């Protein structure tokens, strides 16, 4: 409990200080960098929009137990290959399987865990508007 609070605090401070890392991500894209980068992989981008075209929220958030919190599920590859979380579908039966590392681990190196384009993020970390020139 304490650890997760401390983590949240660190993440919040990180967001406040480092951002805005201005992006034009799709609304609801979740970037998860709990363990990825420490393990030498790119962070994961989870596109909500892509998944909600195919599944109702309930499938992941009730049946599979995903919490409504970016990075709050402490997902790792062991859980996935054992059929938990992403692995409930990404198993080669419902959706493509785990060997396609670079389809999930697509995030820019160094990107922090967050829900992109979220109101909270915009309120605390700037406008969310791309700074013209810096990215071009």
């Amino acid at each position, binding site marked *: 409990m304490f650890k997760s609070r401390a983590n949240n605090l660190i993440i919040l401070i990180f967001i406040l200080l480092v951002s805005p*890392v*201005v*992006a*034009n*991500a*799709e*609304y*609801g*894209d979740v*970037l998860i960098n709990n363990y990825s980068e420490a393990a030498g992989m*790119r962070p994961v*981008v989870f*596109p*909500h*929009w*892509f998944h*909600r*075209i*195919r*599944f*109702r*929220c*309930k*499938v992941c*958030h*009730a*049946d*599979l137990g995903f919490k*409504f919190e970016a990075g709050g599920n402490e997902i790792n590859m062991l859980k996935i290959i054992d059929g938990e979380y992403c692995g*409930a*579908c990404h198993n080669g039966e*419902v959706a493509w399987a785990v060997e*396609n*590392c*670079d*389809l*999930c*681990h*697509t*995030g*820019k*190196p160094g*990107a922090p865990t967050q*829900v*992109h*384009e*979220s*109101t*909270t993020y915009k*309120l605390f970390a700037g*406008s969310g*508007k*791309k700074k*013209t020139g810096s*990215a*071009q």
Partner: protein
Amino acid sequence: MKSQNSRLMPPARSFANTISVAVLVLLATNSVITAAEVRSGKQVYDVSCAGCHASGVLNAPKIGDEQDWSKRERQGFQVLLTHALKGYKNMPAKGGNPKIEDKEIEIAIKYILANSGLDRYQQTSVAKQAADKAAQQKKSVNKLTTQQTRKSSVNSFNRLMKSADEWNLPPAEDGIHDPDNGGTYMLQKPKQAFETLSWSKSGNRVDWVKALDNNEISPRYDRLDDQVKPIVMDLNIVREVKGSMPDVVYPHKQHTEWLDCSNCHPAIFIPQKGANQISMASILLGQQCGVCHGKVAFPVSECRRCHSKQKTLKAAAEGKQSN
């Protein structure tokens, strides 16, 4: 330069490459192209070339690589043009889009060369000027401003609003996906997915509730069984609110289409009338309605979608007196 013989490859590899090119091209051509007018080099490049030439995927020469491009250009512009028109190695004819005019391919190559340090291609040909002019006119009609026009425009100062050309960008350009990662180019582009879905002015620019109601999408309610129907509860909860804002009507129906009761009850909302203190402040901080709205469900800027029940004049007046 490599001889023409190097075009011959072992059939299996060639086939695999053709497939992967075809996949990439399918991913890349997400917008419908009407060849009614000649487009600018950048426009053609962005839609039909950038998929491979921005990243160098499948050994495509990267835009900006002066050494590589000047080597190619030394063969003569005509050779480059022929390769682009007829296809060469992994590159399909016209980047896989036969609808592109030959003239546009030529302009697009010049655009790539000009942006790869070959300055003599900077000079604008008559055709390019005409194309640019046409593009400008089209843009101003559509109220889409490009980066260039925005820079020179006095109205460019707009801190909070994204212009339409910043919506639903392909993964490689959205700022969070790594353009150096090959898998990034395999992902579906949002615009392609949203093409047929009901439009909204915020969020994903998709009205997800309408899209579901109109059967534009059919998301599963069960992980494995696509026949399972959702357990929908049709019950509106009206919450009276302070001030002149219309009262909030909370529809269980639209929510239970997507969610399970346990998603909200009892952790987020106690299922009892009057038991939940809700404020816009807490919603903006990501609590209560803000657990989803403002993150993935429609954002809180859509005031009227919740504050939908007009107060009677009498009620509004009484509210004013009591204040």
